[in-house]
């Protein structure tokens, strides 16, 4: 494992501090999931159980937790037309092993593919099937991290 990869897998002290502070706030709420994105980084906290008797324990040592730096990339429309999802229908959370067609934009009777441009994980699908889209409209967000 390279030094860089090791650094990416284990939290730095500052990151651990931030996560801990967020976790303490999170347990005070009844949120199921909290995700914070900032400058290409993402911290996501989630509950595994809703049982009222289970009191979440916040570990002191966060080195056991893996961190995942999210590099979100927007896939945008490069023309004006009607957005259609391809088959199999891509969904949030889908893992993309390589470049694949996610959708197409129909314009002037021509089918214009929208591709993932590489591997990643679908963070969000921003448009619905049959929706008109303008130039530059965000269609998908892909996690390249």
């Amino acid at each position: 494992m390279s030094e860089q990869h090791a650094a990416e897998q284990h939290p730095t002290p500052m990151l651990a501090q931030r996560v801990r502070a967020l976790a303490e706030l999170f347990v005070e709420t009844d949120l199921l999931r909290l995700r914070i994105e900032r400058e290409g980084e993402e911290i996501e906290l989630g509950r595994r159980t809703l049982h009222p008797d289970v009191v979440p324990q916040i570990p002191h040592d966060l080195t056991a937790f893996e961190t995942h730096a999210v590099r979100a990339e927007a896939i945008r429309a490069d023309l004006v037309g009607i957005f259609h999802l391809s088959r199999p229908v891509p969904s949030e959370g889908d893992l993309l092993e390589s470049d694949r067609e996610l959708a197409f934009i129909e314009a002037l009777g021509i089918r214009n593919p929208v591709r993932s441009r590489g591997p990643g994980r679908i963070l969000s699908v921003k448009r619905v099937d049959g929706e008109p889209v303008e130039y530059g409209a965000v269609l998908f967000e892909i996690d390249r991290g």
Partner: protein
Amino acid sequence: MLIANRGEIALRINRACQELGVRTVAIFSQADRESLHVRLADEAFCVGPGPVARSYLNIPNIISTALITGCDAIHPGYGFLAENARFAQICADHGLTFIGPRPDVIAAMGDKATAKRVMREAGVATTPGTDILESVDDALHAADQIGYPVLLKATAGGGGKGMRAVESASDMERAFAGATAEAEASFKDGRVYMEKLILDPRHIEVQVLGDEFGNVVHLGERDCSVQKPSHQKLIEESPAPHLSDQARSVLLEMAVRACRHVRYNNAGTLEFLVSGDDVYFMEMNTRIQVEHPVTEMVYSVDLVKEQIRIAAGEPLGYAQQDLQLRGHAIECRINAEDPYNNFAPQAGTLSRVVFPGGPGVRVDTHVFSGAVVPPYYDSMIAKVVAFGASREAAIARMERALRETVVEGVSTTIGCCLEILATTPFREGRYDIGFLPRMLASGVH
């Protein structure tokens, strides 16, 4: 109606449509996202990034927008695709009404060498000149026939591009090379033709309207002789001052005759060079013009609404004798330019904008305090139009209006326009297209 333009003319078209109860769709580039025409249209679609070729000239994205929004028609405004016959045909092919003349008329009149031939066939006097010149030798031979000085002009051109004045045979080779290269770079068509260079003429144009039923009317003339050294207009007025009844009669009669000859439909403008009582056809613009407000003010006609009505198949509904000219109107173009530095275009944020008002003052603009002037487009940011019962009243009103006008953040032509209005040649109405270049060259300002 899809409005295939930007800036003040897009807003102008939107206003006419709103008053006619026509839903509007605006297109915009990413640089124009916050623009006023985008905010006031019923719907708006981004068609590309800032550069014109990828946005306002992006025919596939424009047509696609019109189709997916259920538009019936496209108004091209002026510039961009307004005189593109191919675009007009593409609109027709997709069942969209193009607000303008038929594609064959645009094709015939848009090519300037062809337009002059068509005008000669109609018996309209044209500037002595030639068809397309194939070589420098052709140009030299033609110039000997016509007599120096001559002017080389791009057949696909406008805005002063691809033009070279030639004083003598020794200048011809260099001028020919320069004109063809500039024409190729500006219009992707390097063909040039030649005209007699008429020294310091007046530029006087005639507004026309024609319907699908062969009816043609004129709405008088406009004097557009106050032009920058690049031949772009800066101040226009109607009616033209000190134009003899004979010259006026010839101009208006020629304009109507030419339109009937080509079965012209919709709005258009025929431009002439006038020297004394000699009148020569220069070119025709098959679209609404920037300076159309001065005609609207003196004839009380909404030209954009007329364009839409005509395109919808309605007859004009009035004859020439029903159109009465009243008063005098002047327009000053407020450009984001430095007039004392060769009118260098300015881009930036307009930190403060205040436009004038009061009786007889009209302002067509798309800018407001905080608006950004992008670097990609023409530098005009507003037109201030003043109407008065007489020319003197219109000048006084325009001076008052310009003094009230505040545009901070970029240099503008406001001060230059005030200077022009104060000069004796302008106040006496005795100026030609060389007037402004001479004024600037004299350094007196």
